[in-house]
C-alpha cells in the first residue's frame, strides 16, 4: 500500500507544526501555501531579492521559526514533504471516489490551475484583521495594523513617516514597536481597552507569566521609542482629502462613550488600525464544517466534524502563534495515527494539550479585556462608507434596517449591496453588523477567492496527481455577484 497522503493548507505556525509532526510519522505531506516562502503572516519573510541579513530584527520567537524552517527543509529534501508555494487554494472538493481534491490557482497572476489529491486535509488558513468603520477610514494612509506589519516584514517598507497605531487588541503592541524600530515616528498608541478590565482578569492572565513578561517587554520598547500609550481612548475620525493628514482622538467615559471635551488632533500620515482578528473559514464553510460563532469547530484531536478534515491555528479561534503551534502539532499526530488506522493516544501530546488549554483561557481573558467601546457605532456617521468595495454608506445600511426591516447581514446585503464586492464581505461584514445592530455571522462564500471562469469550467475534469492547465485569458471577476 502506498503511504497515506495529507494536504496541509497554509504554511504558518499551525500548518508547519502539523506538517512536521505528520511527516515524521510516515505521512506524505503536500504543503500548499499562497506565499513565496513558508512562515504565514506571523513569520512572513522578506523577499529573498531584498537580501535581508538580519530578518530576525523584524520578528519575535525567531528560534522557533528556525526550528520549523529547518525541519521543513529536511523533510522536503528527504522527499517526505512537497511544498507548493504561490498556490492560492480556492476550493476543496470531496469527490465520490473518496478523499479530497484541493484546487488552487498558481502564481501571482492566479490564472493557472493546480489540483492536489489527498486522503486527509488540514485547514491551517489563519486569520485576518478586523477593522470597524469610522469617518475617514477609506483614506489612503489608513491601513490595517497587520497590513502595515506585513508590508514591513515582507517588503521592508513603511507607509509614511509619522504613524498612529489605534483600535484595540494585543496586536497593536508589536505593530507599534515594529514601526518605531524601523524608523517611523509613532505619535501614539491609542487603545480603547480599559486598564481596570485587565486587573479584574489578573488571575487568568497570571496563568501565563511568559505572556505577561512579553507584554512587559513591549511596554519597555514603547518607552524606549517614546511612544505615548493612551488607554480608554479612541480614534473618532481620520482627516484628509486625498490622503491621511491627521486623526482626531478622544477619551472614552466609563460607559464607552466619547467624551467630546477631550477631542484633539494628532498629525500623522499613517494610521495603523485594528479591532481584533477574524478566522479564515471559507474553505471549512464550503466543505460543510460546523462553526462555533466565527471559528471552525474542532474536537480534542483538532478534527472538524467532516471525516478526514482537520483544522488548526487561527481558523479554529484567534489565539496567536504559540497556540497555533500546539494545535498544529496535535493535529499532525492525530492525522498520522488516523491515516494508519489507529486511534491515537492523547498521552502522546500531553504537553501540547496543556499549552493549548492554558492559551485558550488566556486569550479568552485577553479578548474580554480588549472589548470594544459599547457605543462605538454612534461615531459612525451616516456619510461614512462601511462597505469599501461597493461604497455603501452607514446611512444606507441604517435605512435598510429602519425603513425596509432588514434584520440580518444577508438581507442588508441584498438591499444595499454591502458585502457584494471584490472582498465578498470579508472586510465590511463586522462593520455592517455593528451599524445594523445585528449578529456578526460568517459569510457563506462558494469559493475562497475569485476564480477565472475557464479554470472553474475545467475543474474536476481529471482526477489523479497535481496537474497544471495552460494559462488563459483572465476572467477575474467570475464570482462577484454571487
Amino acid at each position, binding site marked *: 500500500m502506498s503511504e497515506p497522503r495529507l494536504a496541509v493548507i497554509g504554511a504558518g505556525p499551525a500548518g508547519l507544526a502539523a506538517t512536521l509532526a505528520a511527516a515524521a510519522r510516515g505521512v506524505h505531506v503536500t504543503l500548499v501555501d*499562497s506565499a*513565496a516562502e513558508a512562515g504565514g*503572516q506571523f513569520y512572513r519573510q*522578506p*523577499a*529573498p*531579492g*531584498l*537580501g*535581508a*541579513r*538580519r*530578518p530576525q*530584527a*523584524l520578528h519575535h520567537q525567531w528560534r522557533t521559526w528556525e526550528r520549523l524552517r529547518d525541519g521543513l527543509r529536511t523533510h522536503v529534501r528527504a522527499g517526505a514533504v512537497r511544498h507548493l508555494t504561490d498556490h492560492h487554494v480556492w476550493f476543496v472538493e470531496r469527490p465520490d471516489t473518496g478523499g479530497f481534491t484541493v484546487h488552487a490557482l498558481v502564481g*501571482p*497572476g492566479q490564472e493557472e490551475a493546480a489540483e492536489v489529491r489527498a486522503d486527509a486535509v488540514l485547514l491551517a488558513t489563519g486569520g*485576518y*484583521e478586523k477593522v470597524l468603520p469610522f469617518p475617514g477610514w*477609506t*483614506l*489612503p*494612509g*489608513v*491601513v*490595517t495594523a*497587520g*497590513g*502595515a*506589519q*506585513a*508590508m*514591513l516584514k*515582507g*517588503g*521592508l*517598507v*513603511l*507607509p*509614511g513617516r509619522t504613524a498612529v497605531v489605534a483600535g484595540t487588541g494585543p496586536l497593536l503592541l508589536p505593530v507599534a514597536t515594529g514601526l518605531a*524600530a*524601523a*524608523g517611523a515616528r509613532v505619535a501614539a498608541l491609542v487603545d480603547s481597552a480599559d486598564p481596570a478590565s485587565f486587573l479584574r482578569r489578573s488571575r487568568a492572565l497570571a496563568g501565563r507569566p511568559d505572556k505577561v513578561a512579553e507584554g512587559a517587554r513591549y511596554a519597555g520598547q514603547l518607552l524606549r521609542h517614546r511612544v505615548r500609550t493612551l488607554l480608554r481612548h479612541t480614534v473618532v475620525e481620520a482627516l484628509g482629502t*486625498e*490622503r491621511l493628514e491627521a486623526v482626531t482622538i478622544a477619551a472614552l467615559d466609563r460607559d464607552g462613550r466619547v467624551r467630546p471635551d477631550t477631542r484633539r488632533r494628532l498629525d500623522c500620515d499613517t494610521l495603523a488600525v485594528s479591532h481584533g482578528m477574524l478566522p479564515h473559514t471559507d474553505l471549512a464553510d464550503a466543505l460543510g464544517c460546523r462553526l462555533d460563532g466565527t471559528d471552525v469547530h474542532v474536537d480534542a484531536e483538532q478534527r472538524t466534524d467532516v471525516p478526514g478534515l482537520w483544522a488548526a491555528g487561527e481558523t479554529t479561534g484567534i489565539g496567536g502563534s504559540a497556540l497555533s503551534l500546539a494545535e498544529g502539532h496535535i493535529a499532525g499526530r492525530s492525522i498520522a495515527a488516523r491515516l494508519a488506522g489507529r486511534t491515537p493516544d492523547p498521552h502522546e501530546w500531553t504537553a501540547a494539550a496543556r499549552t493549548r488549554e492554558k492559551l485558550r483561557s488566556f486569550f479568552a481573558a485577553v479578548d474580554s479585556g480588549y472589548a470594544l467601546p459599547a457605543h462605538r457605532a454612534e461615531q459612525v456617521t451616516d456619510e461614512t462608507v462601511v462597505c*469599501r*468595495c*461597493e*461604497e455603501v454608506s452607514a446611512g444606507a445600511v441604517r435605512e435598510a434596517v429602519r425603513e425596509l426591516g432588514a434584520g440580518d447581514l444577508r438581507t442588508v446585503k441584498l438591499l444595499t449591496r454591502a458585502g457584494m*464586492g*471584490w*472582498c465578498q464581505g*470579508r*472586510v465590511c461584514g463586522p462593520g455592517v453588523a455593528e451599524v445594523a445592530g445585528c449578529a456578526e455571522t460568517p459569510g457563506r462564500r462558494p469559493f475562497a477567492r475569485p476564480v477565472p471562469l475557464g479554470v472553474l469550467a475545467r475543474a474536476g475534469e481529471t482526477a489523479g496527481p497535481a496537474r497544471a492547465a495552460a494559462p488563459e485569458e*483572465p476572467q*477575474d*471577476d467570475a464570482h462577484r455577484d454571487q
Partner: protein
Amino acid sequence: MNPLELARAEPGPAFTVTLDGREIEALPGQTVAAALWTAGVTSWRSTRGEGRPRGIFCGIGVCFDCLVTVNDRPNQRACLLPLRPGDAIRTQEGTGRHE
C-alpha cells in the same frame, strides 16, 4: 533608521519600472505596493462609484482595495504582485476596463 537598515538588507541591483509613464525604482522581490510606497505613492486607484482615491489597506490580499493595472492587466492586487524590470504600472480608474 529605515526598514532596510534594520534588517541589514543588501538587495540586488535596483531596476526601473514606470508608474503612468514616470520612471520609478524598484528593488528585486518588492511587490507593486512596496515599490510605490518607497516612491512616496500611497494611492493608485479611484473607486468606481465616487472616484475616491485608494491604496493599500489590508496588505495581505484580502480586501482588494489596492487594485491596479500592470502591463495592461487591470485589477491586480498591488500587495501580492512582485515587480519585474520594465513593468508598466498604471493608476486604475473605476473598473479599469474603460479603455
